[in-house]
């Protein structure tokens, strides 16, 4: 989701799967992609931070505008400037998202192509209970559709549950859920991944070394993601956990179900974010009403290192100590105009020593960053990874899906700049990706193979 919590529901999904995969008794661990949980947890922290005197303090006048109904007022006031700024920074933001999405995809494709573990069929998740090992095509199609229905229902239930939790301010619950989820990803899945990579390359590693490596990796990851850390380290960890989650999906989702689920989740994303009663939209609006950041800790933030909101010089001194490097403040992706509560997000992204910013406009102008939900990363990588795994050993299909997803992301960001509100990041990219996957695999591949066999060039 490029704007507000697009991915919250998609993020809930892996949590459930992991839970069922691990053990029946384990508590429901929040999925990484559950933007709602992330945002809720983030919001709890943001709440605390805000009370600690975030940069909203100095902007009380402006802040008053910003909170609640103030947001539209502010927007109208800064409309023209914002529009120019939005479009001026537009290309930079697109690249700020291209790079992490590309990195995540590269990690997933490299793993798929080299580590055989993630392409071996080894059971299914409980969320896709119907097997695809049926003799007839019709039966297989029916099973995949049923699997999709089950999966999407689980996602809807979890999203609604999360929205309710958020609405009734059960921040601690959400926070704990998120922490458990990240723990599982950072420790258990990394351990499995490392084990498989070592097996593939026949490298021996003793358990003490393994323990130290995994412990350090996981502990630093937890700190970076849920507390404070350097921006780039946090971004790297978010990319890694997205890649790990995508690999889990690629391994455990059956063939046809994966494609149908990708399609269905784009449609769900579209409806959840844009329909008035969609859970994600309700979440965004609730967060806006409460003037809290949405979905911290499960959103990739590419915000630049602005100084902490220094609308008044006296707050500048307090700024860095309180708000720098607040990784948990990362919200969902939204190319928001500065008038939104985004300013709080950006405040957390500034490890640079403060320099006084005299006007709020200035502050906001510098705070432009782009946020993309981790669920988007995961599903983009699932699409490209599946293309790499199943497209008859063909690299052209992978490349075509990659370009299609990037163009979809570009178009979505363009729409974001035009509409200036939360938009789902999945539909356009996944649609392009699916179209290009099937057409490249079935139409372009025979053509290019024939050309290559005669060494012809077009």
């Amino acid at each position, binding site marked *: 989701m490029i704007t507000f919590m697009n991915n919250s529901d998609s993020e809930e999904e892996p949590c459930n799967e992991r839970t069922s995969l691990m053990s029946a008794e384990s508590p429901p661990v929040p999925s990484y992609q559950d933007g709602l949980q992330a945002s809720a947890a983030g919001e709890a922290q943001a709440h605390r931070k805000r009370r600690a005197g975030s940069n909203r303090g100095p902007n009380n006048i402006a802040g008053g505008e910003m909170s609640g109904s103030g947001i539209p007022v502010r927007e109208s006031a800064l409309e023209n400037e914002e529009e120019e700024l939005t479009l001026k920074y537009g290309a930079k933001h697109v690249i700020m998202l291209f790079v992490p999405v590309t990195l995540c995809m590269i990690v997933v494709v490299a793993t798929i192509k080299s580590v055989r573990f993630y392409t071996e069929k080894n059971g299914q998740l409980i969320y896709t209970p119907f097997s695809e090992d049926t003799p007839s095509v019709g039966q297989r199609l029916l099973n995949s559709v049923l699997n999709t229905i089950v999966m999407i229902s689980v996602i809807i239930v979890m999203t609604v549950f999360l929205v309710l939790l958020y609405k009734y301010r059960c921040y601690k619950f959400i926070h704990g859920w998120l922490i458990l989820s990240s723990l599982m990803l950072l420790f258990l899945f990394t351990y499995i991944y490392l084990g498989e990579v070592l097996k593939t390359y026949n490298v021996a590693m003793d358990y003490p070394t393994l323990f130290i490596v995994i412990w350090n990796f996981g502990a630093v990851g937890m700190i970076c993601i849920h507390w404070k850390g350097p921006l780039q380290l946090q971004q790297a960890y978010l990319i890694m956990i997205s890649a790990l989650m995508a690999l889990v999906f690629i391994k455990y989702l059956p063939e046809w179900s994966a494609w149908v689920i990708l399609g269905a989740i784009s449609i769900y994303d579209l409806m959840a974010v844009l329909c008035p009663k969609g859970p994600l939209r309700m979440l965004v609006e609730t967060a806006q009403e409460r003037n809290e950041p949405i979905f911290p800790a499960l959103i990739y933030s590419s915000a630049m290192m602005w100084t902490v909101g220094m609308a008044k010089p006296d707050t500048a001194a307090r700024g860095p100590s309180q708000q720098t490097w607040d990784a948990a403040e990362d919200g969902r992706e939204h190319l928001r105009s500065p008038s939104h509560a985004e300013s709080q997000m950006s405040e957390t992204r500034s490890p640079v020593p403060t320099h006084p910013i005299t006007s709020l406009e200035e502050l906001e102008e510098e705070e432009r960053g782009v946020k993309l939900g981790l669920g988007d990363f995961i599903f983009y990588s699932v699409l490209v990874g599946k293309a790499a795994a199943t497209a008859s*050993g063909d690299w052209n299909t992978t490349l075509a899906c990659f*370009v*299609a997803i990037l163009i979809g992301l570009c178009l979505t960001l363009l729409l974001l700049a035009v509409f200036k509100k939360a938009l789902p990041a999945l539909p356009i990219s996944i649609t392009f990706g699916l179209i290009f996957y099937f057409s490249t695999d079935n*139409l372009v591949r*025979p053509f*290019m193979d024939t*050309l290559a066999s005669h060494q*012809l060039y077009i």
Partner: protein
Amino acid sequence: MTLAVFFGCTFIAFGPAFGLFIFTIARDPLRIIILIAGAFFWLVSLLLSSLIWFIAVKASDPQDERLQKGLLIFGVMFSVLLQEAFRFLYYKLLRKAIEGLVALSEDGCSPISIQQMAYVAGVGFGLMSGAFSMINLLADALGPGTVGIHGDSQLYFLTSAFMTMVLIFLHTFWGILFFHGCEHRRWWEIAAVVIMHLTVSGLSFCNPLYVGSLVPSYLLMAAAAAWAYLLSGGSAQNLRRFLLCKCCSRKGVGDTLGLVGYQDCCWDGERLSQWLKQEHHPLVSQTRGAGDFLRPWSGCYLSLEK
């Protein structure tokens, strides 16, 4: 077929393009977007042409060799024409984009010119075309095998790499030529690009007689390079001055003479001397004439004068 072949072919095919990307495109986000969009347009053109070919093949008799060969030739030619059509569509899109960028900019100037867009679009087309031709080969080169064991040419990988490189360059130059032709309504430039593209693709039918396909392609590339250079404002004089006038930095000498914004490293001597005389520049008022400043063998003569 080992890592050596893999890396060698990769760098032959993509090295120059990678260099172009790193030094001219990677810094500017707008150019990266135009590059990826160009790659996308090429991909769509390939998709449509594959669709047509696929339908034609499915509708025909698979046993008839001559028919299949004919369909392949038709497929190749149709694909080339469709690629050029999509280049034109991309030109139209970029024209609209420039208008949008101008409208949004603060000083009424687009941050990127149509010539730069033409270059980046050409690189985008070329990179995607090269990638689609070469990536599968490179992946196969990593694995075991013997090239040409059934009597085919043993130079398959190497010639494919060279052909890919020349195609990437050609697409870049064709982009510049094509957009220039569209901008200035010169249909013969557009026609020349289409004919060149058809020629290069047609020549590849000579493979494995590589002298018939590679050598003419490289000659065509040199011709296209020269033409594109001339169209972009280059000249033999510029080239000579660039090659000889190595230590002149644009900024240093420009600042010395107060020539703010002068783009070229080595200036046109006549223009500069005229300008200096006109402006009564203090440097000119010295005993030496303006022309003396511009003799390349004096090295950084202007800074010396200061």
